[in-house]
């Protein structure tokens, strides 16, 4: 190859190299500003998240409005390994001491909100507020044996019926939509109550129509003047009446009697407790509890457990 040809080839190769080395790129800045009130965050608590210092140690007067938080452990069973499903329920509770000053109490309770833990793939069964709001106030008996920290607190079982009526405590929950005891409680035209099933991003997969009985008996101890903690004797007896698709039909739920807990926390401003009476009408409605729920949970340091199938639902 002549010298001139080699020189030309070398120049071309050098040119290719120059093109290549000049092709590095730089990262640019985006034009979107930061966005507020999103990012999966909940509303900031509007109440002081730290209980005020020195709450009265004795619960001298329990009369007033409280919020009951119940964590109910269940196992989903089928042909494979069981999977834990947690059900969290929030009740509005009004404690009414007996007039004779003895240890007996009356609990006027109403379930305000219920959530379930996500299952496989993050699918989530929702309990609409319309369902909880369609329930009725329950009145049960309770006992507070003493005033000081560690005093025993007991209650009869609070029983809520969703999508079914005329059922006794011992009766099986009817599994047929044709059963005369099944009612369209939430008024949506479907039997029982309707639970939408959604993904974590809120995409609705299907609807499940169920009848169920929710039981919660309380056995705890006074922690201070505004909080009682203990074990919850819980159970959810559920029957799937129908589903928008057959694939969303529910499987068997086995209540787990161990590990269920409750916290009964004061929310009427008495003894330094948070005051959820947003409209100042002297009473606390479920809507007010729902609106202030993040703040109330934060104020009392209440947290939801993570499902732990290995521990609570072993094969």
């Amino acid at each position: 190859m002549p010298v001139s040809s080699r020189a030309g080839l070398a120049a071309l190769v050098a040119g290719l190299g120059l093109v290549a080395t000049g092709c590095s790129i730089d990262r640019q800045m985006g034009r979107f500003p930061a966005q507020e009130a999103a990012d999966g965050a909940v509303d900031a608590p509007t109440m002081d998240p730290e209980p005020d210092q020195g709450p009265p140690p004795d619960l001298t007067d329990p009369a007033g409005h409280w919020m009951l938080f119940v964590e109910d452990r269940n196992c989903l069973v089928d042909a494979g390994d069981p999977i834990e499903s947690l059900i969290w329920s929030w009740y509005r509770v009004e404690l009414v001491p007996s007039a004779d000053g003895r240890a007996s109490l009356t609990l006027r309770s109403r379930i305000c909100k219920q959530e379930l833990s996500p299952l496989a793939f993050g699918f989530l069964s929702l309990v609409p507020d319309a369902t909880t709001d369609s329930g009725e106030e329950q009145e049960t008996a309770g006992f507070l044996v003493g005033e000081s920290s560690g005093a025993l607190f007991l209650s009869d079982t609070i029983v809520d019926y969703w999508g079914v009526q005329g059922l006794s405590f011992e009766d099986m929950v009817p599994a047929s939509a044709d059963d005369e005891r099944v009612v369209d409680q939430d008024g949506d035209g479907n039997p029982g109550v309707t639970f939408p099933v959604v993904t974590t991003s809120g995409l609705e997969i299907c609807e499940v129509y169920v009848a169920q009985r929710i039981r919660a008996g309380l056995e705890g101890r006074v922690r201070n003047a505004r909080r009682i903690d203990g074990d919850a004797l819980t159970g959810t007896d559920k029957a799937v009446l129908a589903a928008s698709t057959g694939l969303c039909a529910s499987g068997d739920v086995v209540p787990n009697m161990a590990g269920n807990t409750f916290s009964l926390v004061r929310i009427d401003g008495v003894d330094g407790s948070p005051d959820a009476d947003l409209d100042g009408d002297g009473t606390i409605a479920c809507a007010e509890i729902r609106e202030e729920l993040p703040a109330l949970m934060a104020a009392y340091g209440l947290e939801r457990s993570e499902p732990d199938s290995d521990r609570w639902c072993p094969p």
Partner: protein
Amino acid sequence: MRLSAFGVTAVAALCVAGSARANLFETFGAGARAQGLGGAVGALVDDFSATYHNPAGLALGPPRVGFGLHGSYDRTSILLMERPAGYDPPGYDARRAPRGDTDGAGVSGGINLGFSLRPFEVDFALGALVRVPFEGFANIDTAFADEREQYFDNQLRFGLLSERLRSEMITFGLGYRWHYGDEGWLAMGVGMVVLPAVRTVNDVYTPNAADPSVVDANFRIEQTIEQGIVAGLIIQPLSWLRVSASFQDEVFQSVDATNQVLLGGAEDEPVLQDLQVAQHYTPPRVAGSLAVVTDTWRVALEGTWLGWSRYLDAHAETPDPAFEDTLNWRLGFEWIMSDDTSARAGVGWIPTPVPAQTGRSNHVDTDRLLIAVGGGRRFEMWEEQFSIDAALQVHALRETTTHKDRLEAYPDCAPGVRALCDETPDRADDSGGLPASATRGLQTGNPGFPGFTAGGYVLLAGVDVSWLF
């Protein structure tokens, strides 16, 4: 609560594929001579690479058997802009792969094996060319070009480069030359580009929908082929002038899978899952070339129309907005330095068919400048004639920055939505399982949000050795 639907998606990846890919030849050219001329060989091709560029060229050169080594060095990059705060959809932190930049595929290579024969008479020839990548045969690698990709690699890709440089290729064809007058001749040819395809029907049974890791499945897999016709002609009306035209139909590798899923407890209601793959789509191509041929040099100008508007992405979906048809220009020069030695150079401009990706989709591509050099030499060994050709080619990508459009309001993500979309529709209350505050405004995990910059370069080096007989 156990939901039977939990198992539905457990089998989404059960399609099995074996395949070839297009189209490395489209990017660089088929064979070292074509690569050295920048791909402008429609009127000059005379070996088995004509089966891809223009089958008429099979009839122009001597019969031969050849072997080639070709390697590319992919240094393309896609740099993602930093995500601003407050746009994460629920669970975004738990994605399997964090959102990240994309680097090119690095070094890849393969061998070309080809032949051209004249079994019957001087001016009738047939030939074939096969490229086998070193990385292995039968690879499929798909990705989504919108927010769905956040659940997978969570990156963007150069859909028309990168993995395509690791492609397999099979072409074959026939060519015939007809002489007329003293110097004139006309050559014509037809050929075919063949790509394997896969059809699968899978029966899946998930005994416990709450535990989708347990799956029983039967597979029915059928290997078929996809083919695209190639045809062309070359006319030499004057001793120094050649005109060519060629056509290639669209072709792409396909996977068509159907899963029939049965879930324990709901055996009477099977779920059908249709999965489509259209890998490495090669658009219909019409090329026209004009070449001046003398004893000491040859120069060819080639324009190629590519019907990218028919493009199907990796999941057999038509992009929205659709790609645009393009017209590429390539100029090749060959200097006949002696009876046995030649030098080559080429340039080309390859406009991107991809419109600005300011909405939901993230098809990444940029305009490219092509520069090529090469050379060839014939030599004698063992009393036989051989040729060796070499080429070096670089594609410089024009740096392109894409910003997603800011809108007054963002539509909810749904099929047919073109704009950047909201994955979590706004809610008035907390009843949807999420705090209402977490749904306000735009929530998107689209890996291309809020924008990205793409650029870089791709180098190719190729060497072919042929035995001429």
